[in-house]
């Protein structure tokens, strides 16, 4: 069997999810042996044209040029993966969508606006069909390996759409929301990170986007009871995944 051709692409993002691939040090040489990395600008000088078997896309789409590139990538890749929160839901770049008009954003940062071509930031599935999502800011290395392995084996990966709370409970952490009164978003945020932040005594900020069937409206009410202001609640829900209907509902609930 020929090695599958893999490509990594980057849109508006911090490059941290691509770096995560290089952070798989102990698996890296195995991965290089098992797949043909045909396109990975961050790591290679010789990059090859498509078609590819699997394309990983990091970053949100924020310019018309990126929209065109993304559509071309979709045509070139048999299997397309949204890699990381930015590609899944718009992530950090999507914060600008809720902070004012595009013009206002541009005026705050640049003096000459004629050359700026920016559109509201969205995850890649706003424009093209996506075959798999690697959530998280940045992606979880375990899930990344799981996906690569599943693709090689031709089986579907074990990604469970449940809330972070489950993983937190399994670790027997003290609940930050219930017992410490901290505004933790774990109950509405998709698991897979191993409840990383709550395990480190830090409330979940929702970087992995909404869990299956998230009841953000009820959580927003709970946040108010904890003493958060309406603005605080808005800020919480419009950070990593404000583009999703679930988190948008949470932001607008109070």
């Amino acid at each position, binding site marked *: 069997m020929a090695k599958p051709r893999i490509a990594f692409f980057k849109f508006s993002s911090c490059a941290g999810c691509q770096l995560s691939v290089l952070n798989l040090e102990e698996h890296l040489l195995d991965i290089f042996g098992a797949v043909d990395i045909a396109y990975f600008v961050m790591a290679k000088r010789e990059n090859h044209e498509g078609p590819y078997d699997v394309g990983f896309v990091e970053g949100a789409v924020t310019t018309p040029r990126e929209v065109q590139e993304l559509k071309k990538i979709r045509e070139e890749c048999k299997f397309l993966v949204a890699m990381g929160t930015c590609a899944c839901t718009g992530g950090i770049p999507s914060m600008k969508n809720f902070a004012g008009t595009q013009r206002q954003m541009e005026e705050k940062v640049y003096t000459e606006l004629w050359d700026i071509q920016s559109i509201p930031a969205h995850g890649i599935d706003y424009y093209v069909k996506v075959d798999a999502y690697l959530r998280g800011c940045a992606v979880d290395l375990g899930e990344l390996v799981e996906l690569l392995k599943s693709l090689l084996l031709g089986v579907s990966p074990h990604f469970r759409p449940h809330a972070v709370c489950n993983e937190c*409970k399994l670790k027997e952490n003290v609940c930050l929301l219930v017992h410490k009164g901290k505004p933790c978003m774990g109950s509405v945020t998709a698991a897979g990170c191993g409840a990383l932040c709550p395990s480190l005594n830090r409330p979940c900020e929702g970087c992995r986007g909404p869990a299956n069937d998230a009841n953000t409206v*009820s959580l927003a009410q709970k946040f108010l009871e904890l003493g958060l202001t309406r603005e605080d609640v808005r800020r919480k829900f419009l950070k990593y995944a404000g583009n999703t209907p679930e988190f948008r509902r949470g932001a607008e609930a109070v």
Partner: protein
Amino acid sequence: MANKTLKKDQVVSLLNKVAATYQLIAPVADDSVVMFKPLSSAEGVVFDYVNSVLPPKDYFFPQTEQMFKFSTRNNQIVINPPDPVKERVLFGIRPCDVQSIIAMDKVFDREYKDTYYLDKRAKTTIIAVSCTEPLPTCFCTSVGGSPTSAPGADLLLTDVGDVYLVEVLSEKGEAFVQKFSEFFGNENGEGAKKAEVEKAVAAKFVRTTSLEGVKAKLDNMFEHPYWERLARKCLGCACCTYVCPTCHCFDICDFNSNGFEGERFRCWDSCMFADYTRMAGGHNPRPTKKERVRNRFLHKLKYSWDRYGLGHCVGCGRCSRECPVNLDIYTVISDVKEVDANV
């Protein structure tokens, strides 16, 4: 079998000796969190706790449990059973959690014998300890339990001052007492002291209701709007099912480590998840939160009676303590008694 006594200052020595031959599982505290852990000695075991965050059901029905290992090298499929379980002593479990194990026995020991569960069950000696300080969320007495009796355990210890009264409740318990006979004395009036303890503890319960009439009412409440009300609040996080000592749903998956070797495992699942009842074709008989919330409460308070003749809520209060939005099964019991079933 006659009651025995165990001096409090002897417990640590006993557990150390137990740990030398058995796998000892006992409650330890990490900050304020009490957890049941496998231990190599009695160091760190806590005695003055009310209950653990997670029930000890993990030791019969683990979060993740290997079912078998497989390898497919050289065109041969080889299946190996999981590593065998050692004989174990589970010390310090509370009466409500003992009751939950009885409830789980009914599930795993039916027409289909779940060997994974039953093997662990057979190899475990359960030493329960009576509660003397219930939490405000505890309500075992409301659902037919008692903080000071533990039918189904092998031994029950009750703090009656300087000594524990040891009630020997099974042959396994008897064998244990004989094996470690140097630690156990004969009862001398401690039984009467226990009656006083019992009375004192019973008076400390804040939550008192009963299940009287609840099941009969629930029989006619399947389509009641009450469930809709609960569902609006529920976050669907499934914490309740993970901390519940009688929840026993699981999923089965394969883990393939390198394409040739791997294992099949099962892990906890939850009826609160949207994809729990979703079928391969996409149909979901419990499409919204309302159906899922309803299922959970009906399962605890009605279906379990229908199927097994006992309740699946043991009144431990864990779901009441851990629910982020205070959806409380005790309140549900009280509400069900109040609402008009014919609405």
